[in-house]
């Protein structure tokens, strides 16, 4: 260990102790349990029984199919829409349509959907689309003649379509915003103008020139979306079919079963889900690379007139509808939060009430305070760690990181409940039980991968020559780092931080399990009440839960503009 490389070793140690060890400890317990070893239940012998039990589960094949189809479909469609949406933002057509006037406000329109918890969007959407939902109520009975809701499977359909739709609605804003931020690293306008001056249509230029540069920057966020879609429990619970449900929901049910012996097959199911997710990520990457390779032929063909009116038409319709559904889901929750009763087929609440908002004032201040402290600490730490890691890597290089990076993403690959049980046992052995510090640490394990994933692309794309020039002009390392990297990357840095805030705020199980119920949080309140399915409360808590991330995102999107104005 040379003196010069001490930052590298310091960084590695911090990551190993802070993140890698807890992750491995957490996974270790689960893997042991999957192979029959769970001393707390008096199980000490290695066996494959849990796997056999898992394979005999009725409907397992359907569960797997549902998981994969909804996961891949949602990711592909959300990504396509996000890329199309980004193209649309940069497309300056002469026509002044209503939609084109919204372009400057795209971020402001998307942020509320991004900030809202997944469960809130899911419950809102379920109410919107259900046979007894808002759309049906708006048109009943005068148009539909429905005095009672029809027996139609518009949500929780057996093919998982409404689940896929819910995932698209929630993930589109994430991918779209992250694309817009990443596009700032590419000189889009100049390249487009150049391409168009060479006779390329806007669509062709976007597909052939911009997308191949953009995708590497958002590759990891796309993985995040894919992983989330495959492992979601709360959206699957509200929107997915449930007999059988997706693999993640089935696993969750086993973990929560009153028969504690099911912890063993549940652990096997977690490991299976982990493998499934890892395989899906690899499959996705292979598919994308193949597509990129084959499309090189098309790119080189020089064809520049492609207009694809059918696809453009479909996307032009689908994009505003998707965003509208997201906004309506939130609006309908806001309506419910001030409702007392709302019977079918009334188009608007039958009786109004503010009492839940009033009750809130007395019940949750401590929970809100805890949530904010934990979110600020964990996202701040996660951002610091991410930046330190990337900077150390820039200066010293190293291949070891790539390997370790995978371990860091592990918490995203297995169901939280599986991972947390082992983590909890590990923390308890260290004598850490239910303190705020422990909860912040646990949150960090989930927040860090997200900040890292959203930051890496933009960080790597920063033109190294800026720093080289600055160094050759005699600037110190600190000055290069602060004046060049941080200020040029302010936008993605703040967005990564805001994503971290949102991730932390939404953590339910880590707060409950690692906090042992001693650390109250807004999400614990919200989730325990959501199991009671009272839309009015879900409305109040869902909006409140969205508020903190909303502030964080607004800050992240507005600050760079203010800084730019000042300059």
């Amino acid at each position, binding site marked *: 260990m040379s003196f010069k490389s001490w930052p590298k070793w310091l960084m590695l140690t911090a990551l190993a102790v802070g993140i890698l060890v807890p992750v491995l400890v957490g996974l270790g317990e689960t893997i042991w349990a999957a192979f029959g070893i*769970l*001393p*707390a*239940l*008096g199980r000490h012998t290695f066996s494959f029984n849990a796997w056999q039990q898992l394979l005999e589960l*009725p*409907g397992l094949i*359907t569960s797997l199919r549902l998981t994969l189809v909804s996961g891949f479909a949602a990711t592909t469609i959300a990504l396509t829409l996000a890329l199309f949406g980004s193209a649309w933002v940069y497309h300056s057509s002469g026509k002044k349509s209503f939609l084109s006037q919204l372009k400057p406000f795209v971020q402001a329109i998307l942020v509320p959907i991004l900030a809202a918890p997944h469960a809130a969007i899911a419950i809102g959407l379920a109410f919107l689309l*259900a*046979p*007894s939902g808002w759309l049906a109520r708006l048109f009943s009975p005068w148009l539909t003649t429905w005095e*009672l*809701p029809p*027996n139609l*499977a518009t949500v*929780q*359909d*057996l093919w998982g379509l409404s689940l896929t739709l819910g995932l698209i609605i929630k993930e589109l804003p994430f991918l779209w915003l992250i694309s817009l931020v990443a596009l700032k690293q590419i000189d889009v306008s100049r390249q487009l103008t150049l391409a168009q001056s060479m006779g390329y249509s806007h669509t062709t230029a976007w597909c052939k020139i911009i997308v191949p540069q953009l995708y590497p920057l958002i590759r990891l966020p796309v993985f995040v979306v894919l992983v989330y879609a495959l492992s979601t429990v709360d959206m699957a*619970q509200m929107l997915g*079919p*449930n*007999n*059988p449900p997706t693999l993640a929901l089935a696993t969750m049910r086993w*973990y*929560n*079963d*009153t*028969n*504690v012996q099911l*912890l063993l097959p549940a652990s096997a199911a977690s490991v299976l889900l982990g493998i499934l997710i890892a395989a899906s990520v690899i499959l996705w990457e292979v598919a994308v690379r193949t597509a990129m390779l084959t499309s090189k032929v098309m790119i080189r063909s020089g064809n520049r007139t492609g207009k694809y009116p059918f696809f453009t038409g479909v996307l032009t319709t689908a994009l505003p509808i998707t965003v509208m559904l997201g906004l309506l889901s939130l609006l309908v929750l806001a309506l419910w939060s001030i409702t*007392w*009763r709302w*019977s*079918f087929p009334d188009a608007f609440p039958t*009786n109004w*009430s503010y009492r839940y908002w009033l009750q809130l004032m007395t019940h949750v201040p401590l929970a809100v305070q805890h949530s904010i402290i934990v979110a600020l600490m964990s996202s701040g730490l996660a951002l610091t760690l991410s930046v330190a890691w990337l900077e150390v890597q820039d200066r010293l290089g190293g291949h070891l990181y790539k390997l370790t990076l995978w371990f860091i993403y592990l918490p995203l690959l297995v169901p939280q409940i599986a991972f947390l*049980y082992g983590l*909890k*046992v590990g923390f*308890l*052995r260290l004598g850490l*039980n*239910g303190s705020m510090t422990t909860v912040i640490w646990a949150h960090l394990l989930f927040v860090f991968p997200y900040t890292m994933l959203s930051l890496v692309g933009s960080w790597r794309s920063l033109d190294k020559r800026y720093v080289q020039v600055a160094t050759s002009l005699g600037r110190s390392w600190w000055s290069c780092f602060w004046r060049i990297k941080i200020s040029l990357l302010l936008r993605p840095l703040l967005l990564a931080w805001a994503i971290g805030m949102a991730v932390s705020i939404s953590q339910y199980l880590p707060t*409950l*399990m690692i906090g*042992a*119920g*001693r650390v109250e949080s807004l999400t*614990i309140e919200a*989730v*325990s*009440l*959501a*199991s*009671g*399915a*009272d*839309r*009015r*409360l879900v409305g109040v808590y869902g909006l409140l839960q969205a508020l903190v991330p909303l502030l964080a995102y607004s800050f992240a999107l507005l600050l760079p503009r203010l800084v730019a104005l000042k300059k």
Partner: protein
Amino acid sequence: MTLDVNSILPKRLGVMLALLTAGLLSPLGYSATASTDTSNASQWQQTLEQAVGETVYWHAWGGDVRTNDFIIWVGEQTEALYDVKVKHVKLSSTAEAVTQVIAEKAAGENTNGAVDMIWINGPNFLAMKQQELLHGPFVSQLPNSKYLDLSSNSAASVDFTEAVAGLEVPWRLARFVFIVDSKRVQQAPLSMAQMLTWAQVNPGRLTHPVISNFMGSTFLKQALIELTPDPSVLQQPATEQSFALATAPLWRWYDAIKPHLWRAGKSFPENEAIQQQMLSDGEIDIAMAFDPAAAAAGIASGLLPTSARVFVPSRGTLGNISFVAIPYNASHTAGAKVVANFLLQPETQAQMQNIDVLGSFSVLDSNKLDAQQAQVFANLPSSEALPTLVDLGPTLLEPHASWTTQLKQHWSQRYSQ
């Protein structure tokens, strides 16, 4: 040292004063409990003293606002009376608390557990009892246990056919009931056979929660008890043979009713709260609950139409009791006992049974109450949607836990593809 004495002494004095004066000053008329057995009394006195200043972490399902508010009220009372605070740890599933204790045991944390008290019954209780995760027996130490019928076959001594053995304290009564909107359903089906006919006439208007949910499996058990030739078999552990024999009529009935269920029996609500919401939305006509006050409480909180009513099959319904238990490694065992004892106070039970508060039926033996205490119950407000105990008919015994496990398994083998 002096600091310690100074800070503790006034508190203890305050508690003793509270104990002495509570009976005179409290509007509800809490009486300091007098036990005939002096050794028991001095032991309880010791528990009260140990409990002073403790905060009891009560892990309880948090999905019902009225229950949450009742737990807040309990905490306010125990703090004023005994200087014991209650912190409600809101769970979305009781299994979360069980997992917590299992994890603590796995890590060797045997004294400073995070869970002081759990709202529990049935399979979760069985699991904790079998894994020796519970403190006790302690029920007989509680002065207010004198109000309970603890004879060996009483509802308070047996939890899903498992002997309570003094390891958990009853606090609220649960009875399986059906809820309908009386505006839409005039003639409710009063047996499982009638339910089949009703479903055929009203296709798509009946469903049950998913079977992995306890309300879903309760519905199956209710049907099983009614349809099986000899219900007494269900009190014994299920064997392959007895299960096949006892459940054959159930599966015939279910095969017949399934196509007439909501979404043709291919999809089910996730839990009973969602099912109740579907009743409120008009998607279905019959919901289920484990609380006779469910309709009245639903109306009072705006979750159900004012025309919601409860009905029970004429041969009675499954009933059980909600208990509280203390984990073996609880940090505040004394405090938890004080709170458990407070839950059994006749005035507490009357407050709980009040439909404006919670509407859950008392677990006390009415024969053991004095005239004044009985009067408190008699004076409780009534509601049109609240059935009397007589309306509810006979209570059917929960089958042995092995039946539930096997019913769930066989159901999903038959109906999950």
